[in-house]
Structure formats: C-alpha cells, structure tokens
C-alpha cells in the first residue's frame, strides 16, 4: 500500500514539474521501435518499422522520427505522434548511423560497406551527393554552428572533417583504433570521440583539429578488453560528458572541465547509445545484450531503473 502511495505521490510530483516525454528505442532484432514513458517507467508499445532498425533521430520540430532500417537500405520517416510511416529517404546501402544538420534540412548518413557518407535533402527526399571517406564509416556528427560534418572511419582510424558547405573533406585526424562515436560540445569548440579498441575518449579542439586530451577508461575488476567505449553525450553547459562503455556494462561520468572520470555507473549489458531528456536531468542508455534501457538520474548520478524493451535495443531518441 505504501509503495502505491509513494509511487502515486512521485507520479503526481513528476507530472507537475516535468513535462511528459517519450523515449523511442530501435530494436535491432525485433525490427521495431519501442515507445517508452520514462517518467512512469513503462513500455507503452512496440511498433514494427522495418528490417534491422538502428540509428534513430527526431527532426528539429519534433514532428518526424527518422529510423535507419539497415537491412531495407533506407531511412524511414514516421509521424512522431502516430508512428505512421510518412516517407523514405534514399540513404544508400546499409545505413547505420546518421546526423541532421542544425537547420534540419540535410541529413548525413554513414554507409559502412561503401565507405561513403550520403548527403540527403530531407524535404526533397533526394540524395544530393556522396562523400568518399575511410573504410567502415560509423560515427557521424554535425557541429552545432553548422561548419563541420565529422565522419569516423572504424578501420582507417580517422576522423574526417567535411566542410558542410562544400561537402569536401578538408582535413583528417588520426585517432586511437576503431573510433566509434563522435559528438560536439554545444559551443562547437570541442569534438569528443570514443575509441572502441583502445578504451579511450579523445577530446579534439575544433580549431586545431588535433587531440587535446585523451581519457583512458578503466574499471576496477573489469578486464580491459571489455572496455569498449561507444556512445558519447555532453551536456549543454559542458559540465559532464557521459560515455557508454559497451560490454563493460557501465556509463562513465566524466567531468568535462577537468577531464577526470568521476564515476562509473552500472547499467545493463553492452551499453551502446545514449540520449538526454530534454531538460538534461536524465540520461537514457540502450543495453543491447540485456534487452533493456537504463534510466540515469543526472542530478544525483544514479541509475534509477532498468526497463525491458525488446530484443537488441540499439538507438535512442527522446521526444519532449
């Protein structure tokens, strides 16, 4: 009874202070997207979307949900309210991850098998051009000032700096082996990148395009070959950066001013991707092997709940 009262009070408290939000999670094996109410901590429904969905993002206006259905060789667009399909984008073969330009007009897609980045005009639903990059491009990010598009090549171990106006590679930075994910700080001054094989997080200075800091992730009692950092997210004030550590089952909490790891938070198995809640008070992680997502309270840096969503959760997007 007490639990009911507490959860009721908590629910009342949350609904009063926190706007309701929806978390979308792609389920690689279930060919579906899970829709989660993170405040109530409940899976609302699972909607089939196409073969092997991985990358997922919401449009700037929050009305369209983009899902990379890798085995269908396309990126599908859905109405974010009804989850009815509204269109398809010509992404090229096997799209895994993609990034949107800050104005929401263009989309950049990594084509892992073809070693290319496809640039798509979303409104016209047309591919504008393809940029040749290194072998196995994976992580991709656009700087918030819309100057750079970064593509990380897993096998070439390089970050490619693509000019967002000309769509030409301007520079390349050699980084630690198997760079997976890239993310800019809100002021576009820094680029954070993770190395899956070295177990490091690199902080690059956007002006010099060089590595300014390398942060080695180590967890006591966990073998170093299990430390495979993937997703990285930095809060808007650059106070903390969060790194998903794959089979180490943890999220590293890094002080983004001092570059010290402050905490390792235990989450589900093989954690890959991360997304903030709109108010940046919570962080959501997808745990591919344990088939759940974990919800992290960022004011206390504590994992509050892990919620089963379906098979092989991969990407995550949050709708306010």
């Amino acid at each position, binding site marked *: 009874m007490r639990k009911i009262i507490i959860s009721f009070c908590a629910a009342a408290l949350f609904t009063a202070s926190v706007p309701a939000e929806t978390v979308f999670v792609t389920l690689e094996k279930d060919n579906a997207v899970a829709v989660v109410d993170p405040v109530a901590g409940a899976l609302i429904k699972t909607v089939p979307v196409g073969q092997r969905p991985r990358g997922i993002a919401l449009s700037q206006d929050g009305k369209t949900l983009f899902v990379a259905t890798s085995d269908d060789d396309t990126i599908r667009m859905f109405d974010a309210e009804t989850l009815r399909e509204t269109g398809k984008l010509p992404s090229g073969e096997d799209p895994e991850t993609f990034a949107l330009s800050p104005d929401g007009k263009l989309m950049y897609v990594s084509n892992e098998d073809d070693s290319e980045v496809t640039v798509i005009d979303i409104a016209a639903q047309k591919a504008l051009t393809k940029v040749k990059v290194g072998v196995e491009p994976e992580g991709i990010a656009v700087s918030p000032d819309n100057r750079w598009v970064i593509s990380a090549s897993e096998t070439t171990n390089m970050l490619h700096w693509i000019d967002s106006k000309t769509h030409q590679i301007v520079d390349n930075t050699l980084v630690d082996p198997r760079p997976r994910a890239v993310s800019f700080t809100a002021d576009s001054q820094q680029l954070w990148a993770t190395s899956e094989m070295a177990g490091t997080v690199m902080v690059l200075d956007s002006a010099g395009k060089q590595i300014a800091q390398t942060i080695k992730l180590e967890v006591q009692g966990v073998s170093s070959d299990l430390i495979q950092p993937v997703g990285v997210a930095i809060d808007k004030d650059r106070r903390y950066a969060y790194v998903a550590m794959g089979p180490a*089952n943890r999220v590293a909490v890094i002080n983004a001013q001092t570059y010290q790891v402050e905490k390792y938070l*235990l989450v589900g198995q093989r954690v890959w991707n991360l997304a903030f809640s709109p108010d940046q008070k919570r962080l959501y992680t997808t745990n591919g092997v344990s088939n759940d997502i974990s919800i992290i309270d960022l004011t206390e840096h504590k994992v509050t709940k892990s919620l089963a969503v379906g098979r092989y959760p991969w990407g995550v997007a949050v709708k306010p």
Partner: protein
Amino acid sequence: MRILHYWRAMAGIVGRELLRFLHQRERFVSALVRPLVWLFVFAAGFRAALGVAISPPYETYVLYEVYITPGLLGMILLFNGMQSSLSMVYDREMGSMRMLMVCPLPRWFLLCSKLIAGTAVGVLQCYAFLGIAWLYDIQAPLMGYGWILPALVLAGMMLGALGLLLSSFIKQLENFAGVMNFVIFPLFFMSTALYPLWKIKESSPLLYNLAQYNPFSQAVELIRFALYEQFNQQALIYTGAAFLLFMGAAILGYNPSRGMMVKKGG
C-alpha cells in the same frame, strides 16, 4: 504500581544488556568486523563486477556488494541472537539467571525483556554497519534507513527468539559450537543473504525450496525490501509467524515444571 514494576524490570534487563554491550568495546568491534570482512573481502572476491541481474526490490543492476548488504544485516542479527542465547547459558552457569527467574514477574515477560535487550544491541550494530557501508558507496534511499528499523526489530526478535529456544536446550557453554555448525551456518548459507533465489534454483531445486522456506531468508528479504522503501507482505507474515512460534516454544522451554529446565535440573 504494577506497571511501574514491569517497567523497572524491563529497563533493568535492557539497560544491563546495553551497558554490557557498551562496556565491551571489543564485542562491538568484533560484531562489526565480521560483516565488514564479508563485505570487503568476500564480496570483493565474488564481486560480480558486471552486475547482478535485476530482481525485486531492485529496479536496476546492482553490484554484489549492494546485493549482500541486507544479507549481512541479517547476519549481524543472527549472530547477535545466538550470542544472547549464549549469554543466557552463561548467566545460568554463573547463577545470575536464578536471580532473574525469581523476580516476581511472569516468566514470559522476563524472556521478552531479555529478547528486546538483545535486539536493541543488534539493531545498533546494524546501523553502525550501514554507516560504514554508506562510506563504501553502498547507499540506499534515505527513507529506507527509517523503514528498515521495524524490519530490523522484527527480524532481530525472531532470530533472538530462536536463540532463546536453543539456549533452553543447551546445557553447557561448550555446546555452542554445535549451534554454530547446526544452526547458524545452515541458516545463513541456505538463504537469500548471499545469492538470489533464482540463482539457487539454477543449481538445485531442493536448495531452492529450503532457502525459500528458511525463516532467515524471509527476514533478510523483509530487510532488503524495507531498505529500498518497499513492503514485502509475505516476508512480514512469515517472519512474524516464525517469531511467535519460536517465542512460544522458548517460553515453554523455560517453564520449570514442563520444559527443558526440568531435564537439566536448572
């Protein structure tokens, strides 16, 4: 007048026990060392560095240290309950038991007072242990530390009653090793204190059943749920029933005309 009489007797018994506890610093330290060794050494050795699968009341993955903390609270209460029983045997050998028993109050009341005294000591040890665990980064919700109090008291009373019952059987202090082997260890190891039920089920269905119906398991689960602000009704009923059963038997056991006292000539 009569109530005052009862009160004085209880205050005397509880006071004596607390005083004894406070004066024996070594006892306090050693009572804390045992669970701390388990926490720092045993749990570190068995440290499931990649987390223990989710089972209620936990809502996410927890480290092994976090999992066994409620079990170690149970261990404190278990040893404390047994130690109280040991002290009863000692009291009997030394003669202070006789003094207690001639007190013109019902025997059940004296035994209950003795039990409350022992439980108070156990609960104090539990909070000291939780304080150290907090510094070791094993932190439960703040309210949990309040909710856990009634759970600790009931679990402590239940295990203390079991100790009282046993002490009515034990003739001499030396027999305590038997209690260790035949009561403490089986109770502790065949329980959910160290491993979750589903894990036990994987290895042996028999052990699973034994662990599930082990009153110590239920007491540990009651504590575990309370620490995370949840109420486990089944564990509460089970622990409460076990307390009444053990206490009833202990009162019978200490009855000079019927119980074990006759056989022992105590």
